[in-house]
């Protein structure tokens, strides 16, 4: 029992208790929904409890729990959980988005309801575990573990080509993970430890080896983010996944990639990070522009939002490899922002899909007149996504771009062109977002099928309003969020201030 009462174990495994309950509920679909929702809400409650125990002024790991796990033949693998400024917001985001996603499935998932929720809660265990694990091996286990439920969520409850998408998703991610596993094993054997904080403190990996290890880790993370040009699985997975799956996929799973860069690549291989920053920055900027341009030409709303994710996460990666406080803090905040805004966009697309069973933009037009509340909410979320000041997206994008500019000339990126071209993405974001909004909501009602559509109901409002509150909150008063990560990031950045200076 002591094991479970540790706050971090509690937040990780609370969803698992829900899974155990669900196993006994084969025939009771309604009850399964409620059990799942209740579990997710309790998990969110527990995450808030963790937040209450968290000390923002402490830059190090907190609430650590460590136990020996696999200790054979010189391998010292531990079950180690810990939380700090880099992960607290992502844990909260995961726990926050899961109940919302579950609530969105109320009428969308009608088949094998119990199994759906079972996988969903298992997924939550994996995601929270990924953000909390402080042992490379444990991290790898959680990392791979998230694949399984997601594979089934796409493969069973997805759209027409779900198997194709599910397999592609699985294989793509696995391919990257293998390289990471090799790098993890190298570290475990040669450095004698799998513990992330120990490895970070140890340092002393030769520069040329750091290089390869960095790339091996980066392969896994870049696929997950996904960074251009490894993004090809994303549109398939998003388009085929059920709404709740897309929300979690965009909201949390993609963040595992950027979080991986932050947690492993930067602190473990600082020299390689500085050296490879221009490469990562280049890929990020290409991703920003490419995602934005490709979004503009989509006909399926969900695909448009999926490609916009590539653009948005390009900003996050660019911020990370600016390697200064503004860039990294902006990037962490932008991870949260993207989870909220893009999650909300997927939910909104889901709402209209449930009504019309199509996502083709040509089928719509003039919806504002028919569904004004829906239109206004979509407008706010779109504006947040394109970075309108006063809403959350702006705070993240601005700080990232500011950081990237600072990390340009004389910094790790080496040129201000990165930030300059990335800022062009701000224009392009307006182009595709407004294009989408116009196609769906403005103009006359041309399609008779849309005339009788009902505006959002109470359940749908309950799903979307919490996201709106956060959109405004982060946009107007992001201080509490920056305060949570500030000391940890400052600590991390010091590593590069010395590193950058050594290089130049």
């Amino acid at each position, binding site marked *: 029992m002591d094991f479970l009462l540790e706050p971090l174990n509690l937040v990780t495994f609370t969803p698992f208790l829900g899974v155990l309950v669900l196993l006994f509920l084969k025939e009771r679909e309604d009850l399964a929904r409620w059990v799942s929702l209740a579990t997710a809400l309790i998990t969110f409650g527990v995450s808030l409890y963790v937040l209450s125990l968290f000390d923002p002024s402490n830059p190090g790991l907190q609430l650590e729990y460590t136990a020996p796990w696999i200790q054979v033949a010189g391998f010292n693998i531990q079950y180690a959980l810990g939380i700090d400024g880099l992960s607290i917001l992502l844990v909260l985001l995961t726990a926050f988005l899961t109940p919302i996603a579950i609530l969105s499935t109320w009428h969308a998932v009608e088949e094998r309801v119990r199994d759906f929720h079972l996988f969903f809660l298992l997924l939550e265990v994996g995601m929270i575990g990924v953000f909390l694990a402080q042992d490379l091996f444990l991290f790898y286990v959680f990392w791979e573990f998230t694949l399984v439920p997601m594979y089934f969520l796409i493969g069973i409850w997805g759209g027409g080509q779900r198997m194709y998408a599910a397999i592609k998703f699985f294989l793509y991610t696995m391919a990257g993970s293998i390289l990471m596993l090799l790098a993890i094993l190298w570290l475990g054997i040669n450095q004698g430890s799998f513990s992330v904080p120990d490895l970070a403190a140890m340092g002393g990996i030769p520069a040329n080896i750091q290089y390869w290890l960095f790339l091996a880790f980066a392969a896994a993370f870049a696929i997950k983010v996904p960074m251009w040009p490894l993004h090809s699985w994303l549109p398939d997975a998003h388009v085929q996944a059920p709404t709740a799956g897309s929300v979690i996929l965009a909201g949390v799973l993609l963040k595992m990639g950027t979080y991986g860069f932050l947690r492993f690549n930067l602190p473990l291989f600082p020299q390689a990070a500085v050296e490879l920053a221009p490469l990562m920055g280049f890929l990020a900027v290409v991703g920003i522009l490419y995602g934005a341009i*490709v979004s503009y030409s989509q006909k399926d709303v969900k695909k448009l939002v999926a490609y916009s994710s590539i653009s948005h996460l390009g900003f996050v990666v660019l911020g990370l490899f600016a390697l200064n406080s503004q860039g990294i803090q902006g990037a962490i905040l932008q991870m949260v922002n993207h989870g909220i805004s893009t999650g909300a966009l997927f939910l909104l697309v889901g709402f209209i899909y449930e009504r019309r069973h199509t996502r083709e933009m040509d089928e719509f037009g003039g919806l504002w007149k028919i569904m004004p509340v829906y239109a206004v909410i979509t407008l706010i979320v779109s504006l947040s996504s394109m970075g309108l000041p006063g809403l959350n997206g702006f705070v993240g994008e601005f700080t990232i771009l500011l950081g990237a500019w600072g990390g340009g000339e004389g910094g790790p990126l080496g040129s201000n062109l990165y930030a300059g071209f990335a800022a062009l993405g701000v224009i392009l974001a307006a182009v595709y977002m407004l294009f989408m909004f116009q196609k769906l909501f403005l103009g006359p009602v041309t399609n008779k099928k849309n005339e009788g559509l009902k505006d959002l109901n109470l359940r749908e409002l309950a799903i979307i309003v919490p996201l709106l509150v956060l959109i405004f909150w982060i946009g107007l008063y992001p201080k509490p969020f920056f305060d949570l990560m500030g000391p940890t990031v400052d600590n991390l950045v010091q590593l590069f201030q010395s590193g950058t200076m050594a290089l130049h």
Partner: protein
Amino acid sequence: MLAAMISSIEEVGGFFTSVPLIVFLPLAGLLLNIILGAIFKDRWGERASSGIAIAAVLGAFVVSVLQWLSLQGHHEGVTVMFKEWIQIGDLDIPWEFRVDTLSVTMMLVVSGVGTLIHIYAAGYMHYDVRYKEDPASYRRFFIYLNLFIAMMMVLVSGNSYLMLFVGWEGVGLCSFLLIGFWYSRNPDASTGIGNSFAAKKAFVANRVGDFGFLIAMFLTFWATGTLSFADVFEHVDAIAPGIVLAITLFMLLGVTGKSAQLPLYVWLPDAMAGPTPVSALIHAATMVTAGVYLVARSAPLFAAVPEAQTAVALVGGITALFAATIAVAQSDIKKVLAYSTISQLGFMVAAVGMGAFVAGMFHLVTHAFFKALLFLGSGAVILALERAHHPLEEDGHEHDHHDDHGQAAEHHFDPQDMRIMGGLRKQIPTTYWVYLVGAVALAGLPPLAGFFSKDEILADALHANPLVYALLTAAAFLTAFYMGRQVLLVFFGQARSEAAAHAVESPRVMTIPLMVLAGLSIFGGALNLPGLHGLTHWLEYTLGHEFAHATEFNITVALTSTLLALAAIYLAWLLYGRQPATDAKAQDPLQARLGGLWRAMQNKWWVDEIYEALIIQPYRRLAAFFAETVDWRFWHDWVHDSLTGRGFRGLARFLANPVDQGVIDGIANGLASGTVGLSKVFSFFQTGFVRNYALMVFLGVVAMLGYLVFFA
């Protein structure tokens, strides 16, 4: 809750602590309107909506006046801290208000003119929503208007570039919402492109400008370590001149977007698709002047690099003349005013570019008065025709026969087309008189407001940059000409359509704001009369003596421009007033005289078409190419599905069939089939007949015995 927030502001004396109210009052107004909308309906709902909105803006105006009063004792101005905002490392940008003479001037203009326009809109929108057959939109309109005022206040009162940027993009959003107010309308004759397209165009063009603004902010921050105005200006001398030049030029890009200068002005004419009060408030009096305010605010930066100043002045001067030529050849009453606005903004930008910051601000203020007046007046004209053509029930049924024209006639009726007007001065005298005041003020005839402000700019231009002076003088000549043309076409001659003959005067809720604005247009020049220089001294507290020099009244310049304006008006009279057209289809007299030039001006020098061909279409094709060919067909289908996927399946099949089936399976199967074959051989002996077995036993025994006997 609000009270609690305000009390946290440190005490600075006077009424300064109330400054956040200029933002929060309009916000409260719009929230109240959102909530109340569900309660009140119909006429009472309209009264409640407009009442709340007007009260909110009036409140903001009162607070602005209080700031002005407070400033009397503290001319140097104060900053009022409200709340932290973004704080990372060196980056520390709070929600902080700046109250100084410059920002208070803007506050007064925005909330003052804003209040008048709100009042006017209460009457105007009553009709407009009915003509657009969507009465429920009345409330929505005032919610947007209040949001706009709030955002504009953030823009003018922010103490940092970033907070200014919040307002900057916020007003852009409101502009988007209000241009697209009648979002469901298709493209029609009066707007050219549909409302929603015009709205999108405005937002995107502004975003291009915002991109420049963003880059300017990055440069500023990394050069000075701060974004708040006073701190940045302190560091100007320490920044490398190249960086300052880059900052100012990128800022100029932002200015060209927001203040509709070349090359990003194209959104403003299409923005006329919005309801007329919006054109007056946002696209003439306030929002579009934000660029001018930005340059004036950044005076120390611009003054540090003469190259940037020249660039700004040239952009302004060229835009002023360029837009004026287009305005000459438009037949839509609002389009003329739109291009006139671009042209006048060119005057202001040129002024602040030349370092004549006060002159620019002065023209900004007077322009807000007379251009708002002209737009609102044009709204009254449009409404007069609309009501005559298609009376609402409450207007009585005297002109019912127009309805008999049926739908076909309805489509061709464009109440904004000056060619179907004429002789309106008899039908709508009040509108005529105020419009005339506005037109004369704009044309720059003494002693109206426009004369003084424009003259100050011209006098400065003569000193600073003769080329700009020439451009502006030519623009001033054209301004007087097209305003003369417009007044003559609209109000003089004889009615050229049934609707014009029966035009209906607007209600007093609309005409009273018009009269107030007319008064301001007449006496607005008093703000900075030559010799007194009230505004100059007022702004000097903020800009400093260096940048707020009082321009000497130049009698030559004044006489030249006045004479030119009179000549232009006379020319207009010769063409349009002496023998006014009697038929709506008559050719414009200038068309025959100018030929190709007229066509170029009428078609706006084909800039929209050029942009369409050079930027929009290529981008669309590029996006389609990337999305369909590169990303989908090449990367997704070919590389992933064909090359990787099918390649892997091919490899798998190769391994499965020849290798696995042939070799590995061969061995395993061979083992099995060998066993089977062998057992077949052996099973030959197992006949099942006991005798055979017995025989074998015998043979075996015989063999064994034989062995034992013969070999053992």
